[in-house]
């Protein structure tokens, strides 16, 4: 595959869920290009297909038709094992619910992601810098229930990037946070984007949150309806 400046290329992507006798068209021909190193916000009403798009990009669900290229990989051609591999190496997920493993400490939540990707040994320097940005050093030995929502979300971000994924997918990362914590998390995402060049896609309902991104795209009824060239 020729080297493309776009780390994500989506063409006429469709996803149909079959619920009993009814077909639900969650995505109706999405086209999207994301250049490497971009921080992109995805906004749109509830049910417009934002999460579905992320699940396909991240290999959690298979597309019905269309083409999706993630960091040069044709996602549509992937088997189950191939999608597992994609999640392991190419993408990192952050969710609205922090989704930390409750029985493990913050440190071990991060370590288990490394061990699943068969990465052992000490953490890399860039990641230690990222941890400083996240301001988590003092909280690493606590279990999730002893952490605030903002802290849990920062641990989840650390876990999502520890394997140095090409793309970070964040589905409403500030949806459960108050203004102050939201701002901290958003600042952090922007710094990760600027300092280590992390490509980030973020779903949000909040226009102020979208302000932190380089660019915003809008979704409606399973399509991207407008994509302003630049958000800044």
């Amino acid at each position, binding site marked *: 595959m020729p080297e493309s400046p776009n780390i994500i290329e989506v063409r006429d992507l469709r996803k149909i869920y079959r619920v009993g006798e009814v077909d639900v068209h969650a995505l109706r021909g999405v086209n999207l290009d994301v250049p490497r190193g971009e921080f992109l916000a995805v906004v749109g009403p509830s049910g417009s297909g934002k999460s579905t798009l992320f699940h396909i990009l991240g290999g959690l669900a298979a597309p019905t038709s269309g083409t999706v290229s993630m960091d040069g990989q044709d996602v549509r051609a992937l088997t189950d094992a191939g999608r597992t591999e994609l999640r392991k190496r190419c993408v990192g997920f952050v*969710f609205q619910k922090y989704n930390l493993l409750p029985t*493990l400490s913050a440190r071990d939540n991060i370590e288990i992601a490394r061990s699943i990707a068969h990465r052992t040994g000490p953490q890399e320097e860039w990641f230690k810098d990222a941890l400083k940005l996240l301001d988590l050093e003092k909280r690493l030995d606590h279990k999730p229930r002893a952490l605030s929502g903002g802290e849990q979300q920062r641990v989840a971000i650390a876990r999502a990037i520890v394997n140095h994924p090409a793309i970070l997918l964040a589905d409403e990362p500030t949806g459960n946070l108050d203004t102050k914590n939201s701002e901290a998390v958003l600042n952090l995402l922007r710094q990760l984007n600027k300092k280590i060049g992390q490509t980030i896609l973020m779903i949000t309902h909040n226009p102020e949150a979208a302000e932190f991104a380089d660019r915003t795209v809008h979704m409606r009824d399973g399509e991207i309806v407008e994509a302003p060239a630049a958000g800044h």
Partner: protein
Amino acid sequence: MINKLVIENLKHRPVRTFLSMLAISIEVTMVLTLVGLSYGMLEESVRRTRGVGADVIVRPPGSSALTLSNAPMPEKLQNYFAGLPHVTRVTGTVVHPLVFPESVTGIDLAAFGEMSGGFKYLEGGPFQSPEDLIIDEHYARQQKLKVGQKVNLINRTWRVCGIVESGKLARLFVQLPVLQDLEGNQGKLSQIYLQADDDANIQTIIKGLKDTPALKEYGVYSTEELVSLISVSNLPGLKAFIAVIIGLGIVIGFLVVFLSMYTAVLERTREIGVLKAIGASPGYVLNILLRETAVLAFFGSILGVGLSFVSRWLITTLVPASLQQKIMPEWWLICMAISLVGALLGTLYPAWKAAKQDAIEALAYD
């Protein structure tokens, strides 16, 4: 790291973990106790048979090695046997069965003592009167009997005259003629024991007896032959019994672990989704649950081995005369394997369910 997750998961639900281990340990204890009882009681029976000191045993027509016919033999046979070459001593007994496994044995104390080396009295002494009863230490302990106390057996009141060291034929002894009278079998015996002048002549004696036409229907055995027949492999019922216990053990382990892991998987739906979202393969999820089960089975088995000592202590304290449990280290590994097999079978379905669980649905799950 995977081991840490396994341990933390087990620690997260200590009651579930402890109860699962306890249930597995009870399964193991059950197998060890029942198998230990099977072997222990057979060995006790061998020990007491040897304790008579006889080399050859003659049983009435219709008996087999393991069952005693109650067709009695005439007492006069003893005189005939005593006159045979190489036979040094002869003594006969009558056995009156009580509630299984107990029985009362009528003996000629002098002749029996000569052959067996004599009773060792821990308390009291030999028979004084017809209603006297000699019991062994285990029976005395189990029934809390002392010398001089009265006991009702076979519709009669007896007086304990002596308590003897266990290991000689039976646990309860009365005088032979008294028991013969009670049974209305005067002059009849249910077993006759012979002692040879030399071990080398035992087979000669047996051959002589078997070649005697008048004894054709009688059972003639060397003690060693009889003892070798008292073994698990010679008792088809016992073999089947042990197989059933093992089967039950596996089923119990299966059920316990199935329930435990099934609820664990339901409870962790979300966590399993998270693991998948960060790149865990179905095999990885399976691996976590199998390891968790293996830990439960391993520690449950160790606890079960420990509990089998407790069950033996209870048995020897409460019912030493009726039951003997043998501690069998060679069965410890077998039991561990049994509990592991049951546990792994029990995890298969929950683990398969977890492994194929859809990550998106799991993450949407509350």
